[in-house]
Each structure stands twice: as structure tokens, then as C-alpha cells.
């Protein structure tokens, strides 16, 4: 729901003051949001009932060692200094060390993030390629049977718990029909055969020209993509429908019809052109929400992405890893918000 407000929020920056001022305000607002994100994770990190010093030295360390590490970590300083240190560390890409993998959290995330990107990207593709035409169709046939069917299907997509739908998909398409592969990114016996170059399984296997593994990866990707894509489709379709309905009511559409243009050209040539700008914003925001929706989907499909990393770290009380993951997802969110704002300014001729 929050997403719907972003178009006016973007428009706020575009008011008469001109581009430079708008850009400046945009930068300030992004910086403040990022600072807010860091502040929230900082607070969470302090509230956690886990002693960060104990976590590092172990509970059998001597008191002197404990004290020395405490001083090293700067935990004796005033809070604002601690926050400043924390901020500096994060800006340098230091998100702490994972207790479980004993590697820097940043490296862990670099390792897990591509799987999430792969999932979210393909799901967004599904959402765009199906959601937009379907949404346009619903708008054209507004109030008729087709429209009602599409609206209900989209609402179900909004309402269904994605983790449950994933389980049902596995039950039907993996267990009973055997059309797709089960959880994970590859069958176990293919694991580790391909060097991770980009981390994106389809690209890596294609680069290595391992076509068997490529098709295996596709078969693993289809179901989680479809499930997550349905969610994205529901959102994109709904927004497309309401944008299109607004356009089809305008007078220029009537003019185009009176001129004798075919309905196809009226809809796709005239009305849709004006819908594209806000739609770009919608797609960017939908992509952001998929990065998040991936948390539950990845759990269901044992998909080794950032979401699975965050939840598993959570159960192992690996707080640096949880907060690191939160910061990365949050930053991606902020980045995509910024991107959609910028695209809105660049694409909408009225803002020039």
C-alpha cells in the first residue's frame, strides 16, 4: 500500500523550484533515509539481549580479555560516538563478522545475494509480461465478465500467503505431476560443478556451456519464479488497470475514436503511451517488494539467497548477519525508490 504514495512523493520534488533544487532535495532525502536505516539497525543491535563481547570472546574468557575487547569495540564510549563509529564501519563496507560462517558478513552477502536477484528479476519479468497486458485488457473491458475475473485473480494474488502457495506448488507440480525440480537451485549431484562467475546460475552455466546443468537450473527456477511472479503480476496488473481506466476516460481518447482509429491503436498507441511513465515507477517498486517477498519464498524452496541467509542467521542468534542483511535489503529498497523517482523525472515530459 505504501508504494502507491510514491508517485505524488516523486512529484513533490518536481515542483516549480527547478531541477537543481529538486535534485538537491532528493539527495538530502535519500541520505536521511539511509541514515535512518542505519540508526534503526544500530538501535536493534544495542537492544538485542546478546552480549556482543561475549559473542566474540566466548564465555570462558578471562575478565581482562573481556575488558580489553570491550574497549576495543568502543562499547565504553558515549552512544553518539558509538553510532558514528558504526556508521563509518558500514560506509566502508564492514558489516561485522558472522558468528556461524566466521566470514565477514559483507562477503557472505555477496555470495548469497545473486540467487535472490535471479529470483526477483525473473519474477518481475513474469509480472511485467503478463501483468501489463492483462491489466490493459481489464481496463478495456471494465465492468464486464473478463474484468471481474481478472480483478478476482489479482486480489487472490494479493491475499494468498506466498509461502503456502509455494508449498502447494511443490505438492502439485513436483510431487504429483513431476513437471519441475524440487527445492534448491540445482540437483545435488550438479552442485559445485560450475564456477560461480556472476553468481547467477543461468548465466554461469551458459558461460560454461554446461547445458544439462543449465536446464536443471531452469527447472529449479520455474516454480519459485512463478509463485513470486504471481504476486508481482497481481500488483502490476491492478495498477495498470486503474491507470488505464483513468486514461480511457480522457477526451483525447474520444477524439482518437471519432477520428476512426482502430480500437487497438487507440488503446496501445494513445492511451498506453501515457500510462508507461507511472508504470515504470510501479515496476521498480514491485521489484523492491520482491526482494523482500523472497525471504519467505526462499525459505520454502531452500533457495540459497539473502532471505534464507537472514532467517537462518536469526535462528543462530547471528545478529551481525541479520542486521547486515537488513541493511543491504534496506539499501536496495532505498536505491530502487530513488531509481523510480529519477525515471519518473526523466520519462515524464511535463517535468522538463
Amino acid at each position: 500500500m505504501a508504494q502507491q504514495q510514491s508517485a505524488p512523493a516523486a512529484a513533490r520534488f518536481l515542483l516549480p523550484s527547478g531541477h537543481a533544487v529538486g535534485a538537491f532535495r532528493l539527495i538530502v532525502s535519500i541520505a536521511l533515509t539511509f541514515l535512518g536505516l542505519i540508526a534503526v539497525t544500530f538501535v536493534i543491535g544495542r537492544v538485542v539481549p546478546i552480549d556482543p563481547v561475549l559473542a566474540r570472546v566466548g564465555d570462558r574468557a578471562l575478565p581482562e580479555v573481556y575488558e580489553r575487547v570491550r574497549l576495543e569495540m568502543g562499547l565504553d564510549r558515549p552512544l553518539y560516538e558509538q553510532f558514528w563509529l558504526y556508521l563509518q564501519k558500514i560506509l566502508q563496507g564492514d558489516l561485522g563478522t558472522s558468528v556461524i560462517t566466521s566470514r565477514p558478513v559483507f562477503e557472505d552477502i555477496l555470495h548469497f545475494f545473486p540467487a535472490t536477484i535471479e529470483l526477483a528479476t525473473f519474477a518481475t519479468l513474469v509480472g511485467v509480461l503478463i501483468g501489463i497486458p492483462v491489466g490493459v485488457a481489464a481496463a478495456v473491458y471494465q465492468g464486464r465478465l473478463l474484468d471481474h475475473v481478472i480483478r478476482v485473480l489479482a486480489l487472490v494474488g494479493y491475499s494468498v500467503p506466498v509461502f503456502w502457495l509455494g508449498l502447494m506448488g511443490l505438492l502439485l507440480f513436483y510431487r504429483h505431476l513431476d513437471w519441475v525440480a524440487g527445492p534448491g537451485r540445482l540437483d545435488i549431484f550438479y552442485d559445485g560443478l560450475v564456477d560461480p562467475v556472476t553468481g547467477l546460475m543461468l548465466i554461469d552455466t551458459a558461460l560454461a556451456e554446461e547445458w544439462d546443468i543449465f536446464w536443471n537450473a531452469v527447472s529449479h527456477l520455474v516454480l519459485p519464479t512463478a509463485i513470486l511472479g504471481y504476486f508481482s503480476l497481481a500488483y502490476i496488473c491492478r495498477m495498470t488497470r486503474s491507470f488505464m481506466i483513468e486514461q480511457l476516460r480522457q477526451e483525447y481518447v474520444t477524439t482518437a475514436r471519432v477520428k476512426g482509429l482502430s480500437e487497438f491503436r487507440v488503446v496501445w498507441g494513445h492511451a498506453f503511451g501515457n500510462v508507461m511513465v507511472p508504470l515504470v515507477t510501479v515496476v521498480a517498486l514491485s521489484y523492491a517488494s520482491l526482494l523482500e517477498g523472497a525471504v519467505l519464498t526462499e525459505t520454502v524452496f531452500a533457495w540459497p539467497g539473502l532471505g534464507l541467509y537472514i532467517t537462518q542467521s536469526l535462528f543462530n542468534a547471528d545478529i551481525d548477519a541479520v542486521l547486515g542483511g537488513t541493511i543491504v535489503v534496506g539499501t536496495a529498497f532505498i536505491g530502487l525508490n530513488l531509481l523510480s523517482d529519477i525515471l519518473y523525472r526523466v520519462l515524464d515530459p511535463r517535468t522538463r
Partner: protein
Amino acid sequence: MSLAAPSNRRLRDWLLADVPQSRWQARVGRFYLGALEFGRNPMAVAGLTMVVLLVVVALLAPLLAPGSPFEQDLTRRLQPPSAQNWLGTDELGRDIYTRVIHGSRVTLYMVILVAIIVAPIGLLVGTVSGYLGGWVDNVLMRITDIFLAFPRLVLALAFVAAIGAGIENAVIAIAITTWPPYARVARAETLTLRNSDFINAVRLQGASSLRIILRHVAPLCVSSLIIRLTLDMAGIIITAAGLGFLGLGAQPPAPEWGAMIARGRDFLLDQWWVATIPGIAILIASLGFNLLGDGLRDVLDPKQR
């Protein structure tokens, strides 16, 4: 219906009067028109039915399912649906029908708690921000925007990590990530009221800002907030179930739908009913609220259609 009795006809005329005799009549008449409009929308009526069903089931849970949702019968583990256990049994031999029925109470409890926390916070932040304006407005709205830009589920996860799992903590985590839109709605509403004559009149009588905000502005924002809440209910239900599924919300043996799905996951391939049935319950609850919210928006904001 065309043969309506005269008294019905008089009632209808009274409701649709062009010149209502009292404020009450006008209000009832407007409500009647809205209800007619709402009733013409089959999806909205279906949604209302589902929500009413959910509430009735939660209220009458002990009557509808007399057994205890915690009662185990290890001799009857993982039984498929049958006459004795309508929806089968789970891995501890508990009756799934009973647990799903009682689960509606857990879900409603969480949803209502979130609403009780979120609406007043949003109302307070929004009205203060909108009424006072200036730097207060700037600061409060900046904070609201920051929270709006966060990924909600991930942030809720991080909060639960900090304060521990459990129903109440999950509620707090959801509330922390849900309040910003309410502040925005309340602020927008306040801005339209702020310079109206009756507020000016109260101000000239010497009422303090606090009094104006609490007694005169805030009550008028409540109805927009309620609509917004209806629209958000489905999202809250799904987030709560998601946290339960991850093991971060309601803890076993509570009959929470998301947690039940998580348990059923281990038996998914051979005992499908354990995971499937609680999911259908979640779907019905959240779909009901979504349909209802959609219908309400159609009635109250015809522009959106």
C-alpha cells in the same frame, strides 16, 4: 420487492429525502445510499460475508469446535480427513478442524492488537504534524518517510530478532513497520480541516493547540483511518502468518495458522492436509478483508473505480 408495503415505501422516502429534517436523518440517508451502492457490488458483499464469518467463527469457537485445540492423541497421528476428524489430524494427533477454528482467535487477536497500536500513533503523529506545521511537520514527516522507505517484513524480522519471538512481540514488530501510512492519511485530513471556520472559531475562543488537535481535529480523521485499516488488514494477517511460519510469531502449541503450516511442511508430500488447510483459512481471511476494502473504496471514493 416491487410490492413493497406502504410503510417500507415511507421509510425509503424518508431515507432518500432531498431535504432531511435532521442531521441524524441526513446521516442515515447517506449511509443507506452507501449501503445500496455496496450491495450492488457482489465482490464487496462476498468480502463482507467472509469477514463476518471470520468474526463469528472466532466468537463461537468453543461451540463450533468443542474439543481442546491442544489435546493430543498419539494413536491417531497424521490421520487423513474422516468422519471423526473432519480435516484430519496433525503430527501429534491433534484435530486440525479444532485447531483451525481456534486459530481464528489468534489471528483476530493479533490483527486487533496491531490496529489498536497503529491507529492512535498514526493519528497523533499525523494530526500534530498537520496542525502545527512548520519544523514539527518537517521532522515528523521526514521520520514517517524514512519508515515508509523500509522493507517491512525484513525490518519486522530484525525487530523480532532483537526482542524475541512470540505473539505480542510479532505484533509490536508489525506495528512499528505499519504506522507510517496512517500518519500520512491523518495529516492529509488535518490539512483540509486546519483552516476551516469551525477550527478558527474554537481557536478564537482561546482553546490550546492540544485541545483543538485532540478534541476537534482527531475525531474527524478517525473514519479515514478506519477505511485504511480495513485495506491493510489482509496485509497484517499475511505478515503475522509469515512470521508464524518462520517460527518468529506465535509459538507452539498455539494454534496459529502460519505456525501450523510450518509444522505441516515436514509432512507435505505424504500428508497434504496438515499444511494445506490452515493456508486456506489464511486465504479466506485475507481475501475477505481485501474484497471488503476494495468495495468500501469503490463506495467512498468513486474516482478510484
